[in-house]
């Protein structure tokens, strides 16, 4: 329990520091925050209106952070005059698309990583291992925008199965699973192959070590089938780096979603983020950044808990502190 509390406080500190940097960065990027909050070229009235809403803009940054964070936490994310929409509404509208791109990318990444990582470790240095080692290396080194172009060219343009450039729209899976698949498969695949390559390699490396350990030989000597040894005995002992990486890569996946959204089109937060940066739409920018930070921090906290679920020894050690 004390351990959890410690971790929680640590993550809280990380969250505060990073979000503070977010605020500072938007202020550095804006020569006139008041005008940017009001929506750029607007009349004096609007400016005064907005100034009344945000009376703390001339205060030191630390004070501003206090006001802003209070607003964020209480759910008052402000109104974007650029979008003529409240930031919260925008978020509710855009978040699902990004969520599903990231979610399916994660699923695809794991669907690649688990069998490839396990089997290439099991058949180390054999043909399957060598082939996958080469191809994962290729997918890792390929930027996702190249993958996106390749998929558009090779799949979307040649079949009627998927929408072409920018043609994908958000469809909720519970409304129409097939349409959802059509719209999300390619963008998710764009991010999934790269990340799957990284995770395959991570898992393979840990798995190779695990397969050399005595308890795997004992499992073999018990006459257990290789599949069960791999998936039940060895996998669980080899997943710690993998789940760590999943949490760490979550942030990268969300930023990767920007590219996928640009190319394929289910317009989510990434798409909005790009415009917000161009327009200096500070509130939108800040809100999206905070959410990304929060997701990554929470994911890492969750992984920390997951360690204890996977390994009873970690559970025992934590119970002592």
């Amino acid at each position, binding site marked *: 329990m004390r351990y959890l509390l410690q971790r929680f406080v640590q993550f809280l500190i990380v969250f505060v520091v990073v979000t503070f940097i977010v605020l500072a960065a938007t202020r550095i990027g804006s020569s006139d925050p008041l005008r940017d909050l009001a929506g750029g070229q607007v009349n004096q009235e609007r400016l005064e209106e907005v100034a009344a809403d945000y009376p703390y803009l001339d205060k030191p940054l630390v004070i501003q952070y206090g006001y802003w964070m209070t607003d964020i936490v209480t759910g008052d994310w402000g109104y974007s005059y650029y979008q003529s929409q409240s930031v919260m509404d925008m978020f509710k509208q855009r978040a699902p698309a990004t969520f599903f791109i990231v979610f399916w990318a994660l699923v695809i990444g794991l669907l690649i990583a688990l069998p490839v990582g396990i089997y290439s470790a099991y058949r180390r240095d054999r043909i399957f291992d060598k082939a996958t080692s080469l191809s994962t290396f290729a997918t890792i080194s390929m930027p996702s925008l190249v993958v996106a172009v390749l998929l558009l060219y090779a799949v979307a343009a040649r079949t009627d199965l998927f929408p072409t450039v920018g043609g994908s729209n958000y469809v909720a899976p519970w409304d129409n699973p097939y349409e959802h698949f059509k719209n999300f498969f390619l963008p998710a695949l764009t991010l999934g192959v790269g990340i799957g390559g990284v995770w395959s390699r991570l898992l393979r490396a840990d798995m190779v070590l695990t397969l050399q350990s005595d308890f795997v030989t*004992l499992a073999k000597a018990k006459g257990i089938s290789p599949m069960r040894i791999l998936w039940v005995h060895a996998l669980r002992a080899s997943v710690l780096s993998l789940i760590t990486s999943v949490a760490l890569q979550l942030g990268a996946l969300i930023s990767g979603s920007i590219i996928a959204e640009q190319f394929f089109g289910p317009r989510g937060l990434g798409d909005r983020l790009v415009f917000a940066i161009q327009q200096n739409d500070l509130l939108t920018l800040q809100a999206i950044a905070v959410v990304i930070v929060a997701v990554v921090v929470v994911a890492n906290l969750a992984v920390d808990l997951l360690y204890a679920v996977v390994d009873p020894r970690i559970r025992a050690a934590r119970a002592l502190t």
Partner: protein
Amino acid sequence: MSADRLSVRHDDGEPLLQVAELRTHFRTPRGMVRAVDGVTFTLERGKALGVVGESGSGKTVLARTVMGLLPKRNVNTSGSVRFGGVEMLGLPQRQMRELWGTEMAMVFQDPMSSLNPLMKVGKQITEPLRFHMGMGKSDSIATAERLLRDVRIPEPRRRLNQYPHELSGGMRQRVMIAIALACGPNLLFADEPTTALDVTVQSQILDLIAEQRRDRNMAVILVTHDLGVVANYTDEIAVMYAGRLVEKAPTRTLFSNMKMPYTKALLRSIPKLNLPSHTRLDTIPGRPPDLVHPPRGCRFAPRCANARDRCTEEEPPLLAADSDDHTYACWYPVGSPEYREREEQLKRLDDRRVLAAEEAG
């Protein structure tokens, strides 16, 4: 699977295990490592064989080769391993799997690393039961509890739900034995089963193995570097050196009439309780030979105090001593005139050194 089920026989007078000219060579960048290099022995049902040698003598590789546990990659094996009348060498893993656990099982050296740290003890014991015997959940749990009681673990029911790290080293080794015994194997390999344990626990574990052997009429191959360990727990002892058997005899005969200087040297290197404390322990000088380029002649000759010219030129064959079941490979065995002569010389040399030391002191 049942179509190619192995017909291991346990009825006729055939010995349980016949190993002939077994060789296990590892392909390494340095060259071929001859870890096991022509080993022949026979093991009857219910008997216990001790395989003794220094680290690097090939005893563990021998056990693993016989059981078929070595990976195929970069390993050459040849010779013959007949188990219950079936040739095991070269059998596919799928068929070996039917024998592992049910016919032969192994207790490993280090119970800390040999049990799955992430799996409850109960599950590790029930796994082979359900896999091989097709037991249901409640049956297998009841059997596991009984097995834990058999290996003298207190509160067996509670242990089933514990993880290995929650148990002491001795207890873990008992769990490992319980796992090995689960499907009632006819042959148990115990690879240095007590080396990683406290001295106080060692004899308990060995007693336990001996007791289970008697109860189950199970043959045991006890692999150890400690001649003292095997003395009380085996019917027969095979001494291994540099991948070969150099002496083999019934335990009693070996201790009363050992022929091979190496065996004698091994025995001397064990601390004895009746010697005054701080007596310097005899060690065997040098190291076991490089198994990529084993020495010519007798492989022990470079380290043997009694070696003569012939020893480094001609390899001694495994010869029968007074009785047929005692064999050894040595040109000038313990007790031979040449051996005695050299022994005298060494003794005189030693006396002179002591005298010189006394005069100087």
